[in-house]
Every structure is written in structure tokens, then in C-alpha cells.
């Protein structure tokens, strides 16, 4: 692996290839496509959090002038009984307030909206299950009467879908050895991904059963398979064209509208467009789990952790599948522990099915652990970074979830934090500081890339990872570095499911790592072809030619007097040397490389109103290698502010009937520009050995640490801890009043 200093393209900050389209309004997002003769679909949603559906009568809606079709779950293949299918349109029960019940397609959105109100649904209203405590009780009302814990047939039905357990050493012995033990319980509320672009799609089907879907998604291939699954079609029936995507953060990894739009299109023979409004996004699409995490951690006087124990319960929503697994696997990941026990519970409640949200599962469990570690540091009178350094996982540490860590950057991040001027400068009187560590596994998975060289040497990359955060720029930079040609001669395109090889979704911080790897390999394929063409031109053997700075040259010692051939020169004559230059690669990338971060924040608190103001925030994070450092910082800063929002004000507020009371950007309070300070970043580079340029995923780790960093900073100001999030003014003021 070359030293960072030797790179020409990697590490620079050029303008992204799709930038001009996006600042001039030309880029087409999910709702921007209109087709001739197109209809508009709208969804009728359940007004009850839990109800048996006795009857659905679509006839009055169908009778409305301008309505072309109406569907309920009865119009979908009944043999498909996946959670996905039942989430898209309820079957026998409405499982949460906002659960889709039926849909219509009409000439205008307005007609569709008025028509869905004419659909008659007879409900038998059931008591909803709305909290972990309630759901986990014996004899609790059941969200799903057929669900048994861990699919154990002999067990009674339960709201606990599955359990997790990780264990090492002897926890009791470890606690016996401890001089100090911290034991606390922490609640984190449900938070929404809050992407600015609502879900949207257009579907059209032809009489032969072929379907085309334009939609905003993190994964067009996953939309294809999910839609095929729900409709009992084969994936070859469906083509998915991804639009530009207006944010996802995990929330656009699942489908809600697409199968419904396809069915409506099949029934009407016309294209059908469906766009959610913001209220639907909040009520019916994936928030992150609300959680209860209990942590017990013990240490000796000198700060060595002797044992740690976690009990984690995650709300899954109305279907199994909360990220309690990754939550349990990440809770102790930053620490080298001899003795630990982690138990996790995936719990059904009558709320929307949770979806991935940036490092899914980790922010909640690690909030608990990082608060407990801070508490431990307080009681041991140790610097919180020193305490973490003393116990930090490093290369060779066996991670709590099993494997040994390859090279990781936690220690370097902690050391960099300790040295950082923002940390070295002590906070002023009245200002509190909180530190926390973040972690995410990162994933590899499947990617494909093609690299085409035009007759003038211009390079175009075709890949399948929707670009949410500037990944096209990273692909072009890696291609520029590999090929040795200027960044400006390269463009990158995100293809549809029929124009590019299979590619898993943009998520899990995998795009720059895995799709980047495919791009690098496809470029190497182009280089191999160029060398062969040069060898042909020079009448040499191919192994007598090498690629240097974007040009084919004879290897040292080959006795021939020729000018090097640049990519452009080889391209100019490609018709005579074998036809078009086209490199390709497809792979299932392994070794994504875990990503650690250290964050700290300085806050002040208005003790009379309970308002917490963030004065400063610093993020230090291991990027492996920052391909486009500005977009790496962008991930760090964006994740930091999402985490701060979750810590301070973001939460789902339910009434007693399971209705979300704050389903709007007015009352679901994501941070606005004036709430936030600048987010200072330091990128650490501990190269990932599994990537030719050392890339690690960077997208998810940034949201993890801010939750506990904020809690710890508030504790620093107040002198006592508020365990539960959000640290909203009413909660903070109530805690101050209670403490007085």
C-alpha cells in the first residue's frame, strides 16, 4: 500500500461529478418524474394502533369520477406472508397507527386523497401494546398471536421475537474483583432518520407483465427482489431505475410504496406515481428502536475493567427485526474485556416496523455503556480518555462478538483526542464537557463496476450504488489514482438493475469500500488491456510492458525505443487493437474493517429553562484512508448533528392510543442551522489491509458517540446524571428541580 503522501488523486477535494446538476435543480429525485397518462396513488392508513380488520369496502372509492383502481391486501398474492408484505398492506390486523390498509389510483393526487376517505373499513379495536415494559410482561396483549420467542414451537406466544446472548469469562468473579461498580438503566426514545425527501416512486407495467419502477432508494436491486417477493414475480420481470436519493440513513433500504404502485399500474394499465407526505413518512416508515439498556460495569482502582454486563431490550415495532443483535454486538466493542455477559431482546409493540438508522442498534446500547464508563471515570477520578485508553480494544483483541480485531484505530483516535487543542483547552466555568467513543462494524458485500474508456480517453464508471453522500466523487478519485489519469476526465454513473451488475444497497458504510474495490479492480482490468494493446503496438510480450503514471511504458531493461502510450493514445487506436476498452469487476468484498471514533462536546445549560446549548463539538474518527476528505468530514459532521438531535430533542411522542403526536418537522425537532456549532473534525488513518487504498467505511460510526457525549457533558454541568434521552428542556428542568 502506497504512503498517503504519494497519492496524486486520493486525499484531494475536487468537486463531485454530479455537483452542478444538484446546485442548479437539474438532478432528478424520487418525485421528479412524470409520465404521460400517469395516475396518482394514495394510501389509506389505519386510525388505530391495533385493530382487527373485519371488512374493507372499496366500492365507494371506485365509484368516484377520476378513480381508476383501488386495492387492499386481498389484491396481493395471499401465499406471500412475509413481514414486508403484511407491512405494505395490512391483512387481518392493523398493527400500528398509520399501517397501510388500502390504496387508490386516480387522475390527480387530490382526487385520490378524497377517494381514500370514502373507503369503508370495519375495525374491531384492540388494546395496543405501546412500551417495552408492557410488551415483556407475562400475559401481555400480543401484537402477533402466532409469534414464539426464537421460533421455539414449544414456547407460549410472546411479544419477545428473539433473544441474544454473548458471554465470556466469569462475570461474577469479575465483579467480585472490582473496587468500583456502576449499575444504571438508560432509555433512548425512537428517532426517525429524517431524510428530507419523502419516499416516492413511479411504476409502470406492460401487458406482458414486465414492470419498470423509478424510485428513490438506497438499493435498487433490493427494491427489485422485495417487490418481486411481495408480488410473487421473478426478479427478471422487474427493472428498477434509481433516482437521485434525497437522504436515506438506512430508512430507504426497505420498500413501502413500490409493490402497491406496481399492482395499481397492473390493474389500470397506466403508470402510477406514489409520493408520501411528511406525516406518512413519520407515521409509517422506519424509525429507530426505542430501547431500555441496563449496564453494570466494574473496575479496579487503577481503572482496569474487570467485568461488564448488559441487558438490552429493543422495540421492533409491529414485526420482528429490531437491531438488538448489532446493539448487543457493539455495546462492549471498544473494550478488551475478560468477563462479560450481554443479553438482548427483540420486542414487538404496536408501532411502525423499525428500519435501519445509521449504525443500527449501536447508538442506543453504546449510549448506555459510554455513560456508564463516564460514570466510572468520575468515581475513579480518572480522565475519561485515560480510562478508555487503559481498556481499549486494539489489533488482536478478541471482539465481544467473536472475531479478533484486525488493525483498528481506536487507540490512535483516543490519543489524537487527548492531544487535540479542543480537548487540551479546559472548558470555561459553567461549560460541561462529555466524551464518548463510537463504533461500527462496517460491511462489504456484493458490488459490480464497469469502467469504459471513450475514444478520446475519457473514462466513465458504471456502478450500482446510489450516491447519497458524494460517492461518485470517491469512485472517480480511486479510478484516477489507479489509472493515473486526471480526475476531471472521469465520470461516474449509477446504473439501473439492467444496466449494471448486481450491487447490494448503499448502506453499512460499504460503498466506498466495496463498490470502490470493484471500481479499482475494473480499472486494473482496463490497465491490463491497455498493456496488452501497447504490447501489440510495440510488438512486445505483454509482460514486457508496465503501467506508470497513466501510461504504458516498456519495462526497465526492455530494449526498445518507443514513446510511452497514454490512456488517451491507446484509446484513439483501440478499434485497431481489439475494439473498445472496457474493464469490469464484480466481487463480494470481505474485510470491511471496523471504524472507531472519539467525540466530545461542550455544552451549557440554562438552569431556569432546562435548555442545553451545544457550544462546541469535535469528532475524531478512523477513516482507514480518506479518499475525498471533505466527504469523510461530511459524514462525521452530519452524523454528529443527527446524534446531537437524538440526544437533545428528537423523539417519537405517543399518546395513550399509540398515535404519534409529533408527526411533522415542526414538532419532531431535527436540529436547525442555528442550533449547532461548527463540527470540528480530525481524520485518523489506520489503513484497512483489505482494501488497496486502505479504505474503511465511515458513514455510520459518526452517529454513535454524540448521544453519550451529550449526556456526559450534561452530567459535567449539573453534577448528576440524567440517564434517559432526550435531554429536552422539560426533562432537564424536571431533573434539576428533583435534584434541588
Amino acid at each position, binding site marked *: 500500500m502506497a504512503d498517503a503522501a504519494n497519492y496524486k488523486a486520493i486525499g484531494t477535494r475536487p468537486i463531485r461529478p454530479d455537483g452542478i446538476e444538484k446546485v442548479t435543480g437539474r438532478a432528478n429525485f424520487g418525485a421528479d418524474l412524470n409520465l404521460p397518462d400517469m395516475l396518482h396513488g394514495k394510501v389509506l392508513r389505519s386510525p388505530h394502533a391495533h385493530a382487527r380488520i373485519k371488512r374493507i369496502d372499496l366500492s365507494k372509492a371506485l365509484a368516484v369520477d377520476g378513480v381508476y383502481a383501488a386495492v387492499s391486501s386481498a389484491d396481493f398474492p395471499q401465499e406471500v406472508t412475509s413481514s414486508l408484505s403484511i407491512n405494505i398492506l395490512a391483512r387481518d390486523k392493523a398493527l400500528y397507527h398509520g399501517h397501510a390498509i388500502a390504496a387508490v389510483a386516480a387522475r390527480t393526487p387530490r382526487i385520490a386523497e378524497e377517494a381514500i376517505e370514502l373507503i369503508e373499513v370495519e375495525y374491531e379495536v384492540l388494546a395496543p401494546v405501546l412500551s417495552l415494559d408492557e410488551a415483556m410482561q407475562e400475559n401481555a396483549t400480543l401484537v402477533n398471536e402466532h409469534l414464539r420467542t*426464537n421460533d421455539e414451537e414449544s414456547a407460549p406466544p410472546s411479544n419477545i421475537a428473539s433473544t441474544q446472548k454473548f458471554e465470556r469469562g466469569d462475570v461474577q468473579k469479575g465483579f467480585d474483583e472490582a473496587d468500583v461498580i456502576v449499575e444504571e438503566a438508560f432509555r433512548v426514545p425512537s428517532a426517525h432518520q429524517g431524510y428530507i425527501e419523502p419516499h416516492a416512486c413511479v411504476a409502470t407495467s406492460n401487458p406482458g407483465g414486465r414492470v419498470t419502477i423509478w424510485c428513490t432508494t438506497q438499493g435498487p436491486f433490493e427494491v427489485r427482489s422485495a417487490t418481486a417477493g411481495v408480488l410473487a414475480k421473478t426478479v427478471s420481470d422487474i427493472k428498477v431505475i434509481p433516482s437521485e436519493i434525497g437522504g436515506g440513513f438506512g430508512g430507504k433500504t426497505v420498500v413501502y410504496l413500490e409493490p402497491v404502485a406496481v399492482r395499481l399500474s397492473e390493474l389500470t394499465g397506466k403508470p402510477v406515481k406514489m409520493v408520501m407526505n411528511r406525516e406518512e413518512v413519520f407515521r409509517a416508515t422506519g424509525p429507530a428502536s426505542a430501547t431500555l439498556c441496563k449496564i453494570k460495569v466494574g473496575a479496579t482502582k487503577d481503572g482496569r475493567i474487570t467485568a461488564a454486563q448488559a441487558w438490552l431490550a429493543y422495540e421492533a415495532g409491529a414485526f420482528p427485526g429490531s437491531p438488538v443483535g448489532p446493539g448487543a454486538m457493539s455495546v462492549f466493542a471498544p473494550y478488551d474485556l475478560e468477563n462479560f455477559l450481554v443479553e438482548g431482546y427483540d420486542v414487538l409493540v404496536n408501532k411502525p416496523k423499525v428500519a435501519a438508522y445509521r449504525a443500527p442498534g449501536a447508538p442506543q446500547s453504546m449510549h448506555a455503556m459510554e455513560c456508564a464508563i463516564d460514570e466510572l471515570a468520575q468515581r475513579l477520578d480518572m480522565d475519561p480518555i485515560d480510562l478508555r485508553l487503559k481498556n481499549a480494544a486494539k489489533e488482536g483483541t478478541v471482539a465481544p462478538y467473536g*472475531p479478533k480485531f484486525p488493525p483498528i484505530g481506536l487507540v490512535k483516535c483516543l490519543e489524537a483526542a487527548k492531544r487535540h487543542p479542543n480537548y487540551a483547552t479546559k472548558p470555561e466555568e459553567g461549560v460541561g464537557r462529555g466524551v464518548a467513543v463510537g463504533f461500527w462494524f462496517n*460491511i*462489504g458485500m456484493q458490488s459490480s463496476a464497469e469502467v469504459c474508456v471513450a475514444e478520446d480517453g475519457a473514462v466513465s464508471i458504471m456502478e450500482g450504488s446510489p450516491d447519497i453522500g458524494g460517492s461518485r466523487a470517491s469512485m472517480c478519485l480511486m479510478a484516477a489514482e489507479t489509472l493515473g489519469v486526471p480526475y476531471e476526465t472521469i465520470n461516474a454513473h449509477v446504473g439501473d438493475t439492467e444496466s449494471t451488475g448486481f450491487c447490494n444497497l448503499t448502506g453499512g458504510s460499504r460503498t466506498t469500500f466495496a463498490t470502490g474495490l470493484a471500481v479499482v479492480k475494473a480499472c486494473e482490468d482496463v490497465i491490463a488491456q491497455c498493456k496488452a494493446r501497447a504490447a501489440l503496438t510495440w510488438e512486445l510480450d505483454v509482460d514486457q510492458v508496465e503501467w506508470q503514471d497513466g501510461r504504458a511504458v516498456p519495462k526497465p531493461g526492455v530494449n526498445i525505443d518507443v514513446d510511452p502510450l497514454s490512456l488517451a493514445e491507446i484509446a484513439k487506436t483501440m478499434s485497431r487493437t481489439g475494439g473498445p476498452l472496457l474493464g469490469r469487476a464484480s466481487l463480494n468484498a470481505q474485510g470491511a474493517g471496523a471504524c472507531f471514533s472519539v467525540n466530545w462536546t461542550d455544552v451549557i445549560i440554562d438552569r431556569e429553562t432546562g435548555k442545553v446549548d451545544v457550544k462546541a463539538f469535535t469528532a475524531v474518527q478512523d477513516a482507514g484512508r480518506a479518499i475525498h476528505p471533505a466527504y469523510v468530514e461530511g459524514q462525521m459532521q452530519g452524523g454528529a448533528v443527527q446524534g446531537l438531535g437524538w440526544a437533545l430533542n428528537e423523539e417519537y411522542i405517543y399518546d395513550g392510543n399509540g398515535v404519534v403526536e409529533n408527526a411533522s418537522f415542526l414538532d419532531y425537532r431535527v436540529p436547525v442551522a442555528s442550533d449547532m456549532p461548527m463540527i470540528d473534525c480530525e481524520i485518523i488513518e489506520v489503513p484497512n489491509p483489505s482494501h488497496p487504498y486502505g479504505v474503511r467505511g465511515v458513514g455510520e460510526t459518526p452517529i454513535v458517540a454524540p448521544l453519550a457525549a451529550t449526556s456526559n457533558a450534561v452530567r459535567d454541568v449539573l453534577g448528576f446524571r440524567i440517564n434517559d434521552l432526550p435531554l429536552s428542556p422539560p426533562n432537564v428542568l424536571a431533573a434539576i428541580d428533583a435534584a434541588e
Partner: protein
Amino acid sequence: MARVVFPDHLHRFTQGTHELEVDCASFRQLVRVLEEKWPGIESALSSTAVAIDGQIFQDAWFEKISPNSEVFFLQRIEGG
């Protein structure tokens, strides 16, 4: 013999067995051995990630396993 560790969600297939020593040379062989011992586990393993000597594979198949290897089955990580 490689050391193989099963997480909770596989215990209903392994009849509660948490850890096992298995003689095998590749992941594919390991799966065959386990399926023979506990019929039905193969389909569960196909949706589970595995760490072989510290390296995580979301979809393992022909990866080599040596006599002193450690094999951890773990939940697949998805991510946002």
C-alpha cells in the same frame, strides 16, 4: 479440531450447544458436518455471518478452516 461457537439464535438447532470442536477443512465441510448432526441448521446458517479466525464473512462458502481455527457464527450486520 476447529473450535466453533454458536450464538443464541442457533441454539434451537444445536439443542443448546454453545461450542463444539469440529474436524473440517473448509466452511462448506463444516456446514455439511453440522447439518448431519443437526438436520435443518444449514438453512439457518445460510443467513448467518461467520468469523473465521477474526475475518468476518457475510456469505462464506469455500473458505478454508484449519485445525486450530476459531469459527464464530454471528448475526449478519446490515447497516443504514
